[in-house]
């Protein structure tokens, strides 16, 4: 029984880590622009197709394909900023939000036109499928996902709290006019945010593709859950989004095992309802200063 619960916990954490990675991208853009980017779920998809092309079609080495795919995502991030956000930056949040929706539809159809509707497999990083520890099977890709998420979270914490760039980003998200007055290049900071969150989404896509395969719809379910994690974590709270993502993954896995598999998704959204009702400020509450 213990082994079974540990197995469920492990898969829940791994799936939750993917939610956390994607929700980090959501949070960064919310903080920088006050807008939910509905195309966030399509970044993993685009990156996975980039990886597929470089690795499987062009036969490049794994590491090079990986770096190039993230570079592609950086370009996508810049294009996204100037094509989707920048022209509407002085409008209310609504036009921007619709604009991100449109960008998502565009990305899906562009990929459909180029690659067709069939899903494709992507090789794992490690040759080993995984390890048997006691009664628990640890999938190598799941382990990698957990490890990379930890590193990404650590990196992000360091970036925001201990570097000048991070301080500038924080200042931009708190008060753009004030930031501009003290000489911070606000537009540049926002471009950087889009690049960074596109790369984060891309990272999630490349990590999850060997398990979920490369398909046009691969990002949509993940994005919905990641968005839920963002809400649970408190709209715009980095630590909250990570904890929210992991929590969501684990709750889903155990609800599926002990209550109902078909309604697994419903439990995830039920959790969102509970948080919205009882703790709308999220797990840790928001930084008050951001509300100003």
């Amino acid at each position, binding site marked *: 029984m213990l082994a*079974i619960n540990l*197995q*469920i916990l492990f*898969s*829940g954490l*791994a*799936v939750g880590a*993917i939610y956390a990675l994607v929700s980090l991208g959501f949070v960064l853009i919310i903080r920088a622009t006050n807008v939910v980017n509905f195309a966030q779920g399509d970044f993993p998809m685009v990156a996975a197709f980039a990886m597929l092309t470089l690795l499987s079609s062009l036969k490049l080495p794994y590491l090079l394909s990986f770096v190039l795919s993230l570079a592609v995502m950086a370009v996508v991030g810049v294009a996204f900023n100037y094509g989707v956000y920048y022209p509407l930056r002085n409008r209310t949040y609504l036009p921007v939000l619709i604009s991100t929706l449109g960008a998502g539809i565009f990305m899906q159809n562009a990929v459909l*036109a180029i690659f*067709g*509707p*069939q*899903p*494709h*497999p992507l090789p794992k990083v490690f040759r080993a*499928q*995984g390890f048997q520890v006691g009664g628990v*099977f640890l*999938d190598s890709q799941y382990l990698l996902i957990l490890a990379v998420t930890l590193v990404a979270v650590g990196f992000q914490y360091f970036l925001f709290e201990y570097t000048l760039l991070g301080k500038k980003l924080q200042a931009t998200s708190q008060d753009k006019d004030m930031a501009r007055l003290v000489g911070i290049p606000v537009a540049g900071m926002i471009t950087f945010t889009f690049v960074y969150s596109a790369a984060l989404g891309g990272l999630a896509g490349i990590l*999850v593709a060997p*398990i*979920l*395969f490369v*398909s046009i*719809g*691969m990002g949509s*379910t*993940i994005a919905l859950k990641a968005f839920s994690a963002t809400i649970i974590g408190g709209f715009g709270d980095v630590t909250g989004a990570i904890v929210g993502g992991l929590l969501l993954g684990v709750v889903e*896995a155990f609800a*599926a*095992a002990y209550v109902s*598999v*078909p309604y*697994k*998704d419903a439990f995830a959204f039920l959790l969102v309802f509970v948080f919205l009702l009882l703790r709308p400020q999220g797990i840790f509450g928001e930084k008050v200063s951001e509300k100003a």
Partner: protein
Amino acid sequence: MNGSWGAVLAALVLSLPVRTAGADAIKVGLVTEITGPNAESGAYSVNGAKLALEEINAAGGVMGRQIDLKITDSQSTNPGAVLALSKMASEGGYTAFIGPVRSTQIQAMAPTIMKAGLPMMIGGTDPGLTHAKNRWVFRARPSDAYSAKVIAEYGTKTLGRKKWAIVHATDAFGTGGKNALLDALKERGVTPVLVQGFTSNTQDFTPIILAVKQSGADVVGTYIPNSPDVGIFSKQLRQLGVNAEWIGSPSLVTETAMKLGQEALHGIYSVSDFTPDANPEAKAYAEKYRKKYGVAPDFYSSWTYDAMKLVAEAIKKANSTKPEDLRNAILATQGYKGVEGTYNFDKNGDGLHGYNVVKNDKGKVAFITRIDFPPSQESHGGTASGSQ
């Protein structure tokens, strides 16, 4: 295909007759997916029908006349399919139609089929399609009622397994299949130890697989339509150490599913309506198809090939192109050896009553056996006097 240009191109292509036949040619209409998301399978269905057409016409046609095949695009949608058939019906001069492979499109077309009053061969596998009191619908593929029977028969009798776990998607296809499999197992005195549904596009099957493992099942029966779901399920099933036999719906041996699941799908069984090695006709067909089109055929092409030949056969036998004569001739078709199996039409208009069992033998689909059931004895909707 990018929408408007594809449509223009298709319109140009379709405005040209497939084969310049004489004025007295017998016209057969094919409604299929030339544009839209299913365009790829539509291309197969055109290829299959054309191959049959060439053979029929090369052999002198029927009743001394050539057959002319007209293709109309369904745009892969229900309204498109209805529109395509209406267009052909109002144009007039047709003898018979070959319809879509999608059950839902055929359901949408049903009133138009009745109004047109001409026999239509269909490829949709929803059992209800031939039980809807529509006397002009004839099926050139086995219905899903038989896939569950074959899965149950092969699993319990040949593999000798009694502890069943059923895993199914909760959509129309998965739930329908699960219910049919429950019935089929019940007939054999088997109550599954586990019945587990899931929503399509599940990212993680760990809880389901652990339940299968705990249930002690020695065979898993599945109705999982989406290839990515099949791929993820298969990998996790083997990773978590379930070594039970696995036998499921045809979706397990599609090229995409096998590409995604790779070795995790080796050794599994599946039912399939078209297998090149199942019979001499299928073998010959696969060779001809590969020679002409350069790719391997699949069931999207094999059933239209059979449908075209069945129509020609019926015209020949009736020695008439009158709808009523043709209808009777199709219903009277018994023992016709097609590439999908031996056609014995029952009174509902169902031509086939069984499936092939195939095995994924190290990534290749190997034919194992064919299981057929006696045709149903219920009556097909309405008699000649009750025509609408």
